[in-house]
């Protein structure tokens, strides 16, 4: 774990917040500075433009055909706006002066005025006088009645620079302060937001295997923390359910194991207690051996169940023809139906190919069919059907038995569940077959369900994903 990841979430949130805030503030400051700078320059340029235009209106042609300064009030007084510029002059192309803003207006900047140079082209540019003062200078060619003249106007940039300086100071001092404040605020906010989190942690810590019924209090189920709490509570519910199921299962298992052991024990004890003839002893020993067989079968079934429950997918995957498999099982078990006078029919079309462990799938059909035959009365009907849709293989086993009440439709797949509890000892089996069956179907990516119209038998339906045959694959590709 890096040093960064090792920090508390609160610190990490605050730091991330500070970084984000600084980036945004910097970008904003740069934007403001550039914008203000541009605005000031634009304003200066605009003012120069106006001044020059006003000055040009005062030019007249004299009798000699030369451009001269004409003051409407008979003086050299300029228009008032001309006071806005630092300095303004108009020359003839030959370098002679037509007009210059009087010295009095120029606030002692005369010494700084650069001399007129004809080579200067028109335009606006910055100049620095030998005195070190920055000016913005506008130079323009004018033509009045065929006579050319060049006007120049300049405004000191001092004021604009001062304004910019103030702006830079404000940004330079304010920005770190803002970042500092946002960091502090972010740290506080992250702390506040995380308080319920620590509370949840503490409460979740208190819930353990002994106290699985406790739940976290949900404050607001619509915000993220509420969702987290609800998710946690769901998890606890599931855990509690599986713990309870596990407890019940081990209780059931020990009960089931105890029954044959008790029988072996008492039959043995009673058998020893009295003198029997040989046939009598054979009877006693036979009884004990039968129960030993029952025990073996139970242990094998429990092992089989725990093995398939440990699997996420079948370990041995091959293409399996469900129809052929059903055929095989029907032939094998048909004899049992025959013995009970039942009709066992198999309805199937062509091959229905699924992928999986053929041994386990065989087991699925056997378990369901065995149950169907067991619970169907003599003379009844058991019908097997293998079919498929576009993507799914379907195996249906319908029987004529007493049916299963809707409230038990889910329970039949639970471990150690037997439909009629009171008869549990007369109907053989441990109630593990369907639990194994369901798990096998699940690890094959399928599902199993039972439907039952009461009194008219039940239908077990296994749906498995259809294997893609090479032919289909080609068809899809083409």
């Amino acid at each position: 774990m890096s040093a960064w990841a090792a920090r508390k979430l609160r610190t990490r949130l605050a730091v991330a917040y500070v970084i984000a805030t600084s980036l945004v503030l910097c970008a904003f400051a740069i934007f403001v500075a550039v914008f203000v700078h541009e605005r000031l320059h634009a304003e200066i340029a605009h003012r120069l433009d106006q001044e020059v235009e006003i000055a040009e209106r005062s030019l007249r042609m004299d009798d000699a055909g030369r451009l001269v300064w004409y003051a409407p009030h008979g003086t050299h007084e300029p228009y008032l706006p001309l006071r806005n510029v630092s300095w303004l002059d108009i020359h003839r192309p030959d370098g002679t002066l037509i007009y210059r803003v009087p010295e009095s207006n120029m606030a002692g900047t005369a010494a700084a005025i650069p001399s007129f140079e004809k080579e200067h082209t028109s335009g606006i540019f910055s100049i620095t006088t030998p005195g070190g003062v920055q000016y913005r200078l506008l130079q323009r060619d004018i033509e009045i009645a065929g006579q050319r003249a060049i006007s120049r106007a300049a405004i000191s940039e001092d004021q604009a620079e001062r304004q910019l300086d103030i702006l830079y100071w404000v940004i330079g001092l304010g920005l770190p302060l803002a970042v500092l404040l946002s960091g502090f605020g972010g740290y506080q906010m992250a702390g506040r937001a995380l308080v319920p989190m620590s509370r949840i942690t503490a409460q979740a810590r208190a819930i353990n295997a002994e106290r699985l019924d406790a739940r976290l209090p949900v404050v607001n189920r619509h915000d993220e923390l509420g969702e987290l709490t609800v998710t946690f509570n769901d998890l606890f519910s599931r855990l509690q359910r599986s713990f309870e199921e596990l407890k019940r299962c081990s209780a059931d298992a020990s009960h089931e194991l105890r029954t044959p052991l008790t029988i072996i024990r008492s039959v043995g004890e009673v058998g020893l207690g009295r003198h029997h003839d040989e046939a009598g002893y054979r009877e006693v020993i036979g009884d004990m051996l039968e129960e030993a067989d029952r025990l073996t079968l139970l242990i094998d079934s429990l092992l089989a169940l725990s093995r398939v429950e440990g699997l996420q997918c079948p370990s041995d995957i091959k293409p399996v023809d469900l129809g052929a498999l059903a055929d095989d099982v029907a032939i094998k078990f048909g004899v049992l139906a025959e013995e009970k006078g039942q009709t066992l029919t198999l309805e199937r079309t062509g091959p229905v190919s699924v992928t999986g462990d053929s041994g386990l799938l065989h087991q699925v059909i056997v378990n369901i069919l065995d149950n169907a035959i067991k619970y169907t009365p003599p003379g009844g009907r058991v019908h097997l059907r293998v079919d498929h849709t576009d993507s799914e293989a379907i195996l249906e086993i319908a029987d004529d038995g007493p049916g299963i009440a809707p409230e038990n439709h889910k329970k039949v797949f639970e471990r150690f569940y037997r439909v009629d509890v009171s008869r549990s000892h007369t109907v053989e089996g441990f109630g593990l077959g369907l639990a194994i069956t369901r798990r096998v179907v699940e690890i094959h990516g399928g599902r199993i369900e039972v439907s039952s119209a009461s009194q008219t038998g039940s239908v077990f339906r296994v749906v498995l994903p259809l294997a893609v045959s090479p032919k289909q694959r080609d068809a899809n590709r083409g």
Partner: protein
Amino acid sequence: MRILIVEDEPKLAQALKQGLENEHYEVKVAATGEEGFFLVHAETFDLIILDLMLPGRDGLEALSALRHLGFSTPVLIVSARDTLEDRVRGLDAGADDYLIKPFAFAEVLARVRALIRRGRADEILRFKAADLELDRVTHKATRGGETLDLTAREFELLEYLLLHLDRVVSREMLARDIWREVRRVTPLDNVIDVHMARLRKKVDGAAGHKLIHTLRGVGFMLSEVVP
């Protein structure tokens, strides 16, 4: 025929010894891997029945060591470890057969016979027990000269019973050898019972003398005398 049993559970060892002695084998018991290893060096045996979980030296280890030293005595492993990998490991170490606990004694006997018989060509083509005859070539069975009308499965069953004449055949052996069912959880017992009942009706139904017997909790036996 001498058999060595290497098994640390005394009751099981005793039961196996008794059972095998009843079948006229000469049996020695070793309770640990070391003792077994020593006995194999000191004496000659025709077969070793070996438990895997032993105190001291592990059964598999002892077996590998023996095979390494060049002993080729057939070995039948009996173990409670029942996964495919366990079986493969046992057979890889040099075992000739692998039997999972709990087992039916009839099964042990059948495997012992098969292992001792191994290598000898004694393919029997005609079976005879009292007035019951079965011909493997013509695929015909008769009782008292009357041809029995048997299905393929019933013929196979009768053949299996005759092959194990006078010996017990367990349901598990039948499930594995006749129905070729590998998994022990498949509820085949009822199926086997039905077929057996039908076969019995055909073989013993008309005749007064019963040949097929059921041993409760054990299995079936074809024998001229009532067991």
